């Protein structure tokens, strides 16, 4: 056997090699997510990579306080696991927001600790390090506080409506200007700890002020953006500590969050800037507009709908967040099973912003045992509506609003929608005739092809199941 010159590989080299294993594992984890059949395996590969990194880090030369670190980890780990086990799938956006915040907070604290260690006197830091310290403290803090506010909104601890005060945008701009000024002071060589502490405090305030005015319906964009922020903050701590594993992993997350932010904004037909600063939720629809669209709606009975569904060939179910609120996922799954027994082809049309975070509706339906090959995304299902006998809209409103296609005066004009109105028949399950989340009236409801089934979504679907059984 050839003797490898292992002695020439130092301890820090081994640690760096372990971190490369981690990076490869993370990339594979994301790669495996391209196919639902392998995604779970990918997640385990990612977890393995993380374990490798954690173990390797304990071998860092000069690492002290190992006992207290391990004790803290032993206490925090079960808490994280418990939270992850206990959370309901409808509460997943809050959970993700919370983990975003926690990661961002950790990044900010790391910058603070490193700055304290390395900047005992002014002008000691390399320019690149001081920039990274300031930015990771800033972005990490914004992400931490912004995520907590997003969490509070989604958890309904505070109202989901946008919270605004006069001159808010100027206030925020002023705040950012002060933060930037302090950051420049540090970078220019005024390396005092208190400056960084003030930056962190002001960034926390900015994080809160930044998310407070954003309405509940825009949360998918906000959560994705905060995800990107935390990723970038993590990458920046990599510059502070000179650890490539942090730079690569953080940037992968940053790229993911940025892509999702853009996708979500596109799915709403708006720019990211408009979502963040537009305070869409306050948009008032004039009474005249509502009246103009408010023609005759045709109410119907579960029995009539059951006949229509049971004798149809192709049925497309269009779920909205209202379905999840009513906890009707399992009832819908039961309805689909009944229809399939009769030879009806059932598919689900999922709009990108159907839930409260990217892909949320898919998870909610998967939890109700809906096979994922029945879940069709917008671009895939839209051409199929022309051959669809019945489109069953449950708790969805704005994402089916044809005004987004044709009415240039509509606030949601330009938003890509599910072309539900192209189906031969449309059944809308709705609690009452109130307009949707965005407060916009929907001409679909007065379309001659449309019938309305009023009532609680879960109760209505359950009635449909028993009615289909007796057809």
């Amino acid at each position: 056997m050839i003797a490898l010159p292992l002695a020439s590989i130092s301890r820090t080299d081994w640690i760096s090699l372990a971190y490369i294993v981690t990076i490869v594992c993370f990339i594979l984890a994301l790669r495996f997510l391209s196919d639902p059949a392998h995604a779970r395996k990918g997640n385990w590969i990612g977890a393995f990579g993380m374990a490798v990194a954690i173990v390797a880090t304990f071998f860092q030369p000069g690492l002290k306080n190992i006992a207290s670190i391990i004790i803290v980890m032993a206490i925090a780990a079960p808490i994280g696991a418990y939270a992850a086990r206990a959370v309901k799938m409808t509460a997943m956006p809050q959970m993700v927001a919370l983990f975003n915040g926690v990661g961002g907070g950790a990044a900010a604290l790391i910058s603070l600790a490193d700055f304290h260690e390395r900047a005992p006197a002014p002008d000691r830091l390399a320019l690149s390090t001081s920039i990274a310290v300031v930015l990771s403290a800033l972005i990490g803090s914004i992400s931490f506080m912004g995520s907590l506010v997003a969490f509070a909104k989604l958890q309904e601890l505070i109202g989901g409506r946008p919270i605004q005060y006069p001159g808010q945008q100027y206030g925020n701009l002023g705040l950012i200007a002060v933060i930037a000024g302090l950051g420049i002071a540090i970078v220019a060589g005024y390396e005092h700890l208190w400056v960084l502490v003030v930056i962190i405090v002001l960034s926390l305030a900015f994080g809160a002020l930044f998310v407070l005015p954003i309405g509940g319906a825009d949360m998918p964009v906000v959560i994705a953006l905060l995800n990107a922020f935390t990723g970038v903050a993590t990458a920046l701590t990599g510059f502070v500590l000179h650890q490539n594993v942090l730079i690569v992993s953080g940037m992968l997350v940053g790229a993911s969050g940025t892509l999702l932010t853009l996708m979500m904004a596109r799915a709403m037909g708006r720019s990211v800037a408009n979502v963040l600063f537009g305070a869409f939720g306050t948009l008032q629809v004039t009474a005249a507009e509502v009246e103009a669209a408010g023609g005759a709606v045709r109410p119907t009975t579960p029995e009539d709908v059951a006949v229509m569904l049971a004798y149809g060939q192709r049925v497309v179910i269009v779920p909205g967040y209202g379905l999840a609120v009513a906890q009707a996922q399992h009832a819908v799954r039961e309805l689909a099973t009944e229809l399939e027994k009769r030879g009806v082809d059932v598919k689900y049309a999922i709009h990108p912003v159907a839930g409260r975070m990217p892909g949320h509706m898919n998870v909610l339906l998967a939890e109700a045992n809906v096979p994922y090959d029945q879940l069709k995304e917008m671009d895939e299902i839209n051409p199929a509506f022309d051959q669809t006998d019945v489109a069953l809209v449950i708790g969805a409103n704005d994402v089916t609003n044809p005004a987004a296609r044709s009415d240039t005066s509509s606030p949601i004009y330009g938003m890509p929608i599910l072309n539900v109105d192209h189906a031969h028949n449309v059944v809308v399950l709705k609690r009452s005739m109130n307009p949707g989340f965005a407060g916009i009236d929907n001409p679909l409801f007065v379309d001659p092809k449309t019938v309305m089934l009023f009532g609680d979504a879960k109760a209505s679907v359950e009635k449909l199941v028993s009615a289909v059984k007796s057809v």
Partner: protein
Amino acid sequence: MSVSFLIELTVLILAAFLGVEVISKVPTLLHTPLMSGTNAIHGIVIVGAIIVAGIHGQPVWLRIVTLTAVALATGNVVGGFVVTDRMLEMFKRRKPTPTDEAEKPE
């Protein structure tokens, strides 16, 4: 600018491009698990948290700060991977029964 900084910057930019490539292949079906999975991945700040918590001779307040960072990052890592696993477990393909195959028009 130091050589190490330039290398780090190169790594950052390559990682950004790699991230966009890999993530654009993730179907919208799995965007929620993608978010929670990337959540778990940014839990890698735990490496930084352990390093700063392991610095010798910090004052008490900083000890609290760094150990808080360790606690936050640990919760982030464990919770992120567990919740992603829980979600991915739910995604199932339709069980292909013989009648099902026969009925399928495709």
